[in-house]
């Protein structure tokens, strides 16, 4: 199946998803629809003091719940304008299928009646009709199927775009933890799961039901006793199928669970091999592994037995129905009540009825899983967007001239925590940054420095305290205005696939080439970029491996420069740099920070010795403040301690030894 090629479908697999799922994105059945739903709920109600869910209606019943009209309604809403077209296509396909199945039975009946009564004209006529049917099967039927598929794929594209656009506007809180991975899963696995509903399952169900009803009606018209017999046997085989499939499903779940456990043991074995060897633990580990293999074998053999019994039962049922139908028909035929043609037509018509009852249950089950994915997608779209949830004025109130008079960032007694239960990240932090100043935030990791940036950018709102930007409360700026005033150099360059020029222009849509080059020059990146073979057209991202972390950082700086925003936030601009690039960055810093209010977070204290002010952050508050020399001379000061520690190098952060890269 194309699933193999899908292995490259998710180069960044969602966290916690094993390779099996990664390999087959389209076949990943939502075995557990709960986590993502919970995530969606978390997204909605994650704000502290937010509304609690009304009862936990998300138990196992949710699958059934999403099966009903509510689920279908959500699906139609997701489909949007394409729904009527899709419904029309499915209707058309169903009619084609009905015509085909009934016509085959009718023509077989005609053929046999003609032959048994030696009616040559009837035979000839039926054969012509048969030819016509062939033409029909070759044209209209595939056309109708193509129509459904085409609209279905359009719907998938529509859903993907809608969900992606929505994610782009979700509050940043939603991206914390594993949610980033879940977003990808929504766009890949869940859409793949949901599209089964409108690409095949619902169509199949409609076709199956309509054709079965048509077959029963036609049989009743031909010979009602035969129809009765067929329906009864079909019900019987449906019952057998349901019973066994549920059993096999249960055992299969156990097999899957144990296979997953086996994979865990295997992974442990492989990642710990150096230790296993060093401590001569091969035997112990191997015993554990073989035990896990045996654990898989037991339920697998049980499944084999179930499957064998099921296949025997279903063989018996299907043969039994065939034999029974023939038997009843022969008995009627001997009595002269029915023609041989009718008999064979009934045998032919029996198939769709049996099929509906045997595979209908399975289709319904798959539809349930598929609608669960629809449900998840729909609930994602219900999560309020960033702008809606914050009380923000509309954009366009201010223009740049208004920035000048009020000239500072003021944070006062700011308290903040990411999760209600989580630890307080900022606990009464206060700071002031004057216009045009370079202020540095230093402190141990986890002290809350990056969080200060996030609050300034309006990604989160503090639980308590006030933030003023340019003399106005931060909340009175629209997010668009606020962000237009700030440029960011993030901790990791986070460049996007595309050319270097595109990446720099990211900071200013529509930037001209001279502007891009000027920005690169300011950021000291120009001569590096110009030295590359493709210069500004060098590709970043896939295959752009020639760009080192430090060079990426310079490009990220150019991107911030071109934005030309009055406030510049830099998060550890030199943490991952080699000494050469660090010198370049330090040199660029002076030019970049001119005429801007700059906040720098630094781990390497050497970067910020020349800062106008250094703010030492610890445990969510500013504990020291002053110039480098001032702070160093303060006996017993925190900065002095930090400085002494960092004296010994990089704090183990960027130690990369050659041995971590082994031969391929």
């Amino acid at each position, binding site marked *: 199946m194309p699933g193999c090629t899908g292995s490259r479908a998710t180069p960044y697999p969602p966290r916690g998803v094993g390779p099996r799922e990664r390999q087959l994105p389209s076949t990943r059945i939502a075995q557990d629809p709960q986590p993502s739903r919970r995530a969606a709920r978390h997204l909605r109600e994650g704000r502290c003091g937010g509304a609690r869910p009304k009862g936990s209606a998300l138990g196992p019943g949710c699958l059934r719940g999403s099966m009903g009209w509510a689920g279908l309604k959500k699906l139609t809403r997701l489909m949007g304008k394409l729904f009527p077209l899709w419904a029309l296509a499915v209707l058309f396909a169903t009619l084609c299928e009905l015509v085909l199945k009934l016509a085959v039975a009718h023509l077989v009946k005609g053929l046999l009646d003609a032959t048994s009564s030696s009616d040559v004209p009837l035979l000839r006529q039926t054969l012509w009709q048969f030819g016509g049917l062939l033409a029909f099967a070759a044209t209209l039927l595939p056309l109708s199927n193509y129509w459904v598929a085409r609209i279905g794929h359009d719907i998938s*594209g529509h859903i993907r775009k809608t969900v992606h656009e929505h994610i782009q506007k979700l509050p940043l809180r939603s991206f914390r933890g594993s949610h980033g991975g879940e977003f990808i899963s929504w766009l890949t696995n869940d859409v793949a799961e949901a599209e089964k509903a409108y690409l095949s399952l619902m169509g199949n169900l409609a076709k199956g039901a309509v054709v079965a009803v048509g077959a029963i009606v036609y049989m009743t018209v031909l010979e009602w006793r035969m129809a009765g017999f067929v329906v009864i046997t079909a019900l019987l085989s449906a019952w057998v199928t349901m019973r066994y499939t549920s059993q096999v499903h249960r055992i299969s779940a156990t097999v899957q669970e144990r296979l997953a456990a086996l994979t865990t043991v295997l992974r442990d074995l492989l990642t710990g091999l150096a230790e296993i060897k060093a401590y001569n633990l091969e035997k112990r580990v191997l015993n554990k592994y073989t035990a896990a293999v045996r654990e898989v074998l037991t339920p697998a053999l049980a499944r084999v*037995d179930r499957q064998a019994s099921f296949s025997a039962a279903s063989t018996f049922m299907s043969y039994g129905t065939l034999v029974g139908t023939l038997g009843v028909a022969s008995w009627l035929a001997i009595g002269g009540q029915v023609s041989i043609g009718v008999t064979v037509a009934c045998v032919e018509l029996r198939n769709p009825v049996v099929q509906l009852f045997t595979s209908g249950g399975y289709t319904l089950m798959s539809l349930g899983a598929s609608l669960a994915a629809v449900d998840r997608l729909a609930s994602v779209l219900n999560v309020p967007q960033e702008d809606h949830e914050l009380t923000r004025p509309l954009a366009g109130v201010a223009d740049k001239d208004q920035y000048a008079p009020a000239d500072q960032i003021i944070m006062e007694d700011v308290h903040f925590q990411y999760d209600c239960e989580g630890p307080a990240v900022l606990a009464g932090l206060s700071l002031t940054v004057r216009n045009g100043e370079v202020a540095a935030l230093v402190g141990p990791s986890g002290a809350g420095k990056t969080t200060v940036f996030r609050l300034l950018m309006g990604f989160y709102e503090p639980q308590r305290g006030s933030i003023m930007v340019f003399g106005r409360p931060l909340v009175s700026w629209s997010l668009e205005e606020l962000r237009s005033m700030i440029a960011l150099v993030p901790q990791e360059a986070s460049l996007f696939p595309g050319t270097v020029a595109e990446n720099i222009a990211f900071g200013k849509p529509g930037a001209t080439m001279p502007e891009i080059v000027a920005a690169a020059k300011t950021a000291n990146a120009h001569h590096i970029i110009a030295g590359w073979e493709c210069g500004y057209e060098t590709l970043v991202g*896939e295959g752009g491996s020639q760009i080192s972390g430090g060079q990426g950082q310079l490009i990220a700086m150019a991107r911030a420069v071109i934005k030309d925003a009055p406030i510049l936030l830099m998060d550890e601009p030199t943490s991952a740099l080699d000494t050469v690039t660090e010198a370049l960055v330090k040199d660029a810093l002076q030019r970049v920070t001119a005429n801007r209010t700059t906040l720098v977070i630094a781990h390497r204290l050497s970067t910020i010795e020349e800062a106008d002010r250094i703010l030492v952050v610890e445990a969510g508050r500013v504990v020291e403040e002053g110039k480098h020399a001032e702070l160093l001379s303060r006996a017993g000061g925190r900065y002095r301690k930090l400085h002494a520690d960092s004296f010994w190098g990089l704090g183990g952060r960027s130690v990369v030894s050659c041995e971590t890269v082994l031969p391929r």
Partner: protein
Amino acid sequence: MVDTEPPDPTAAEHDPGSLKRLRTVPRTVVHLWRLLPNRPLLLSSSGLAVLMSLSGVAGAHFIRGLVDAAIARDAGAALGAGLLLGGITGLESLLGWSERRLFGRFSERAMADIRARCGQRLVSVSPAFHVDKHTSDHVSRLTNDMAAVQELASENLRSLVRQPLAAVGALAYLGHLDWQLTVLVFCLMPVLLAVGERFSRPISSQSRAFYETLSAAAQVAQDSISGVEVIRIFGAENLMARRYRREVDESVRSARALARSLAVLWATSGAMALLPYLVVFGIGGYRVVQGVMTAGSLLAFVELLNLVAWPTSEFPNLIGRIRRNLAAAARVFEVMDLPTERAGGIMAGSSAGGLSEVAINCSGLEFSYPGRQNPVLSGLSFEVRRGETVALVGPSGCGKSTVLKLLLGFYDCPAGELRVLGTHVVHWDLTDLRRQIAYVQQVPYLFPGTIRDNLLCGREAVSDEHMVAAARAVGVHDFVLSLPDGYETEVGELGARLSAGQRQRMAIARALLKDATVLLLDEATSNLDAESERSLLEGLRELLHDRTCLIVAHRLSGLRTASRFLVMDNGTVVESGTHKELLDRAGLYARLYREQSHPLPAPGGGSS
């Protein structure tokens, strides 16, 4: 050593010279056959398949009898045929049941066997293989590829046996019923197959294209999610949405192309599936009218045609599936063919070197990683006497950790000499060599299990006092006691509560508890802050007693306890001596030391 990239099965399809792959197929089959246990199960289930094929024919024969009797209104004959049909139904179910059971047992046992063999092979491979990439590659082989092998061993192999048998039996009876009609129908078959093949050809490449476009879209989505802060602050939401829309539109376009090809395939295959019936009913009908054939025969003919036509038309697909399965099986078997570490060698007791005063002796050692050009070690020579604590320092990439890995025998046959306790590493019995050495990596691996399991590592004889003393020495005892289950806490449950530093501390305690002559620490304290590192390493010295210790560390500040420093650069030792001697020499060591210390003089001197 097999250090080449595993062949990419998709790449092989593009490769015009994929002859090499073709040749591996029979080898894989042989491999498979030799591996499969319980071959009697396979053979007896095949025997049952023969019987099933016969009962299928018998069923058709009785249908013919029943229908003919019904048309002739012969109630007695009809009853007889009906009863026989009932009997056949029972027999068929019974045969199917036993065949499934036997075959299922065979395939599940075979899978368990292959899994066990792979595991066995993987633990006996040198750890040098298991770099991150290989780990996920091997896991993927033993899950995804194994799933394909399972498909082969259960369904596809079974169909391969059953379908031809069923077809042959049915074919014989068809010939008996009406050989002319049979020949005619089977002349149609190749035509049908060729047409089906012609129209299904573009589908695999189109579906690959479809998945590639989907993957490109997922890539953009991933970028827009992981770069969300940058996107928001630069107001690039619309830009990313546009990019994503472009990729999705592309995927929709290729999905439509695929759907179009599928529709054409359906059209042809639908018509093709009906064609044989049209022929049989048409010609057969005339023959019945002419009295050459009975109506019952015609019906039996159609019934059996089902048995033959469908499997025959499915056969190319089956072969295709099996071919893919075999490619996956080959990837699994590659795991089983991985070279194992050598076994046997000199044991500690028998070695005269056990008396050697020199713990580690290295002279003229040359080494480069397999498949790499540039040498990591070039003419490395040094000596560590028993009971010494020696620090190995130098810029990143100079080959420090490589020395430790060679000492453990993770890599084979380095040129030059590397002696542990007087015996060349290549002559040691590997298990016994490793018994002499305790080793701590930069990112240590803690086994799933309790903290106690991890500290003792299988040495049940160690007393609790010993364990606690070691835990104290590395500074984790108090932390462990703060956990509700103390030393019985499962490491896996701790998750993020166990910091990288604590992991390193535990690994050191584990190494201390292993009663080894030589202790190798590879950046083992890199996640501790400078202060804790220093105190840990100082405390360690007392515990080491007469053990030999070789420490690789990046931060020089922690290493003051070392009795000697070996400064490495470009794969050789360039300086050696005590801290003071080296500083006085003003060479590489002094430069490293200066670089790590700050350009500014240390105020108050955290260092001294």
